């Protein structure tokens, strides 16, 4: 299954993904995709280096699928992490 590497940015906690140029991007669509778990190991290796460099925390591999050109995380947890809470919150809630 396709994989991407995700983490939270150390300074503000924002959900980030390892991008193709090895920098950390905020959108799942912009993440570097690995063909399977074995190949994703190289991504996780880079993530460990980023942890050591104090850029990110808690990296892990996220299974994704691509359907009709749209990429989405397989598990609901990872999908909510990618898209934000599934509910309107804050001032958006109390229109």
């Amino acid at each position, binding site marked *: 299954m396709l994989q991407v590497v995700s983490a939270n940015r*150390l*300074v503000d906690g*924002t959900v980030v993904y390892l991008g193709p140029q090895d920098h950390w991007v905020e959108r799942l669509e912009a993440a570097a995709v690995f063909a399977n778990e074995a190949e994703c190991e190289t991504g996780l290796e880079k993530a460990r280096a980023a942890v050591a460099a*104090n850029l990110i925390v808690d990296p892990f591999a996220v299974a994704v699928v691509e359907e009709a050109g749209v990429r989405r995380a397989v598990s609901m947890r990872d999908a909510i992490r990618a898209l934000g809470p599934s509910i309107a919150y804050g001032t958006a809630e109390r229109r």
Partner: protein
Amino acid sequence: MYRYDEFDAAFVAERVAQFKDQVARRLAGELTDEQFRPLRLQNGVYLQLHAYMLRIAVPYGTLASRQMRMLAHIARRYDRGYGHFTTRQNIQFNWPALADCPAILSELASVEMHAIQTSGNNIRNVTADQFAGAAADEIEDPRPYCEILRQWSSLHPEFSFLPRKFKIAVTGAARDRAAIQVHDIGYHIVRNAAGEIGFTCYVGGGLGRTPLIGHKIRDFLPKADLLAYTAAVVRIYNLEGRRDNKFKARIKILVHDKGAGAIRAEVEEEFARNPEPAIRLPQKEIDRIRAYFALPALPPRSSHSAGFAARRAKDPAFARFVERNVVAHKVEGYGIVTVSLKPIGGIPGDITAEQMDAVADLAERYSHDEVRVAHEQNLVLPHVALDDLPAVFDRLSETGLATANVGLVTDIIACPGLDYCGLATARSIPVAQRISERFEARSREIGELKINISGCINACGHHHVGHIGILGLEKKGVESYQITLGGSADENCAIGEVVGPGFSSEEIVDAVETLVDTYLKVRNGKDEDFLAAYRRVGMAPFKEALYERA
């Protein structure tokens, strides 16, 4: 209310300075994540699904207007314009940057607030009846004792690394509004045959993956012995609680495994040993703390307020609000107003910065500067003159805070669930929103009915003690909701029973409606609420109705 003395102020300021330094060292790479994690948790900073989360203590759920305004300011300046009140009377901000947390804590310290012991294996924020000090049915205000426990337990060297977290609740009226029997220690203020006031002590209650009701181990504890007895309980737990298995580490497991009788004997022996005579509370010290919580000077008023009565007679919306959200105050001519944070279809416990400011203004003008946080995730204005109720209601209405649903099926307790929480197995909030919308029109007809929803087995939404409890689980990658029936968190505490196999997200609201319709069919008139009817008829009719549909 309690005001920091020099010691408190210096202690909190020192803690903020330490954390500022720790964050700077972490960002500069001088501390690893492993080294830093316990430090941030000790200051209430968690890492959730989307961002950091800061949990701020609201000791025994009491806030002054200036504190509420500070929370509004923090929501605006450092977060996304809102906050979330929790089932432990605390507030959480869901989006702060780590780099901002020291500044937030420093701003909080300026209004005598902090995030100490909102995480970690220590004695957590002590909770209390949200009507404390105002309730007509109260024996004595529990908050002075909560404050004494807070001062004693804050950074207590012996009790800062317990086997697991430790939660204490104190309630001061016969009606238990603080859910004391599902706490590690629950203290119930009582009067004995001689007319003295003291505490009945429950130990070993708790929810989570192993829900258990606390055992009464002391009928009457004199006030002077509050700390010595608490220390005895916590010491026995600290020595004997399991540290080998996180899931069996709470005191409830120790009490369950050894038996309440054995624990009682050990606690009494430790208490009799009296290793720290200095923590026996002198009456003078109790009185000193009690003075901070003295009832404000409420000018005498007639129990008949003409303006109030006239508005009630002509405005059904106001009459409904009074019926659901206002209860008797201990002083004639006043009422206790619950401000529901459960708008129909809204997020339980969420409040915007503008609403926080509005509540702060109302508290300042009409409630002697006091706001309370209820464990039901609502707010309370504890001392409102009946004459002022129309004005309070009007202002609440303008700001979307006048939902007249306290105790009704739409007053749902729900944890953040999978929309925010890293531990969740399913979402809670959308289920609460859909139930609230489904039942809005019928809620008064249905009457008292508490629904509690948790997004995982940790049970922060206290689903085991909901009349209807909903636990969100994950089955093969899909949300599945398990229903329990007959739970109750009051003085007749009960853990709900699982009704049967779970329901999908699409099915769960219909399932709740089936339960409600079954209740309406079996009840002996409107006066028999859901829980009473359930206790009379048992599980069978509900189960039948639920699963015959399948």
